């Protein structure tokens, strides 16, 4: 029987080793798997390579992971924010390597990893600093840059509902990187708001089929103060 439900975030991340490449979903706060990140900090794995759109803000989530000195390198599109002080400090101190990737190229490199594409030509960034040193090619009337997939050992994502096969739905723009990161990692851990019986999700509306998901943790939403 297939049962991908795991009781706690801690248990779901208990085997993350030092040096792992970890994708972290979310676009700002939307889709950010906060409780999984907390569990990753508690796990204490070091020298991580993190793949995420941003580099954390304020003191929680990815920012806390950086503050806890767990991250060696970050691959992202938009690290600088008004409150990205933990990233800023570590970066300026030379403690954190940054690979800056245009957002669409980041998404497509992650998608390529999940879809078994060896490399692809994208028009984005041609003629810019972010294409320096990269292979280019003119195809038809457009110039392209060669980009390679980004694979990960783990993906930490936040979805909305899940069944025990790991089928996932998302909520509005919290979907963002979740589906492509799920496919790009060896071990995808999804935190979800709700778990449902097998068959409760509409097969037409499953966004991430369970084949891409290895572990599911239900995180009850915080109850709002009355």
């Amino acid at each position, binding site marked *: 029987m297939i049962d991908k439900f795991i009781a706690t975030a801690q248990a779901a991340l208990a085997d993350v080793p030092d040096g792992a490449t970890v994708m972290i979903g979310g*676009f*700002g706060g939307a889709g950010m798997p906060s409780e999984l990140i907390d569990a990753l900090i508690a796990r204490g794995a070091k020298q991580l390579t993190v793949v995420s759109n941003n580099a954390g803000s304020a003191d929680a989530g990815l920012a806390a992971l950086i503050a806890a000195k767990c991250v060696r390198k970050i691959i992202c599109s938009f690290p*600088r*924010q008004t409150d990205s002080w933990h990233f800023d400090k570590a970066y300026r101190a030379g403690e954190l390597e940054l690979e800056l990737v245009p*957002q669409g190229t980041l998404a497509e490199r992650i998608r390529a990893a999940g879809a078994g594409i060896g490399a692809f030509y*994208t028009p984005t960034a041609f*003629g810019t600093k972010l294409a320096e040193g990269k292979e280019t090619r003119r195809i038809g009337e457009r110039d392209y840059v060669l980009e390679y997939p980004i694979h990960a050992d783990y993906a930490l994502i936040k979805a909305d509902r899940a069944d025990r096969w790991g089928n996932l739905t998302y909520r509005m723009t919290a*979907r*963002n990187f979740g589906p492509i990161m799920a496919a790009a990692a060896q071990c995808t851990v999804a935190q979800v708001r709700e778990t449902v019986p097998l068959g409760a999700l509409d097969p037409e509306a499953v966004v991430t089929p369970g084949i891409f998901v290895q572990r599911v943790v239900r995180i009850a939403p915080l109850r709002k103060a009355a």
Partner: protein
Amino acid sequence: MKKLDRKQIAARLARDIPDGAYVNLGIGLPTLVAEHLPKDREIVLHSENGVLGIGPRPAKGMEDGDLVNAGKQPVTLLAGGAFFHHADSFGMIRGRHLDYCVLGAFQVSVAGDLANWHTGAPDAIPAVGGAMDLAAGAKHVLVMMEHLTKDGKSKIVERCTYPLTGARCVNRIYTDLAVIDVKADGLHVVEIVGGLSFEELQRLTGVALKYREPVAQ
């Protein structure tokens, strides 16, 4: 001369977006355009974080952290809207499905090169987001910016001195002083604000501009 303020630039640009267009408004200044789109047109707003059909800002207290735009501001969804993931969203951009994108700029060159992501300062922390994808992918790239820097230098330049976002990608520039088309044979002035002569605009801009004086009625 009466310079346009930010809202007026946004309103001027909004007038050029046709009914039925699919449009991405970059973070910052371009977001203002949303509030000035003509009410009699149905224009579908895209945000690169995976949504088409963005509606007005939510009422105070009705914000939902799961429904945001590329600037991470809370938005609403119109009837007819749809959600999708990041790879699909940038496929729309890169695959030339967006009719227009509107971007801010530090500089635009005569050739239509755009610089808007990095000042080039050695100690600056870089961040690019979706700007390079939008510049490379949208059918029409519209730039919205002030004509001059704070110390009075033209932001329309012979060659960008800041790092590029995209080469030869800008189609039209909207500033507080003028509307200018970027064409293969150079910059064509479409409109000038009231009270400013072409000669004065030319002097302020520095690089060569072309202009066909409107015929007097």
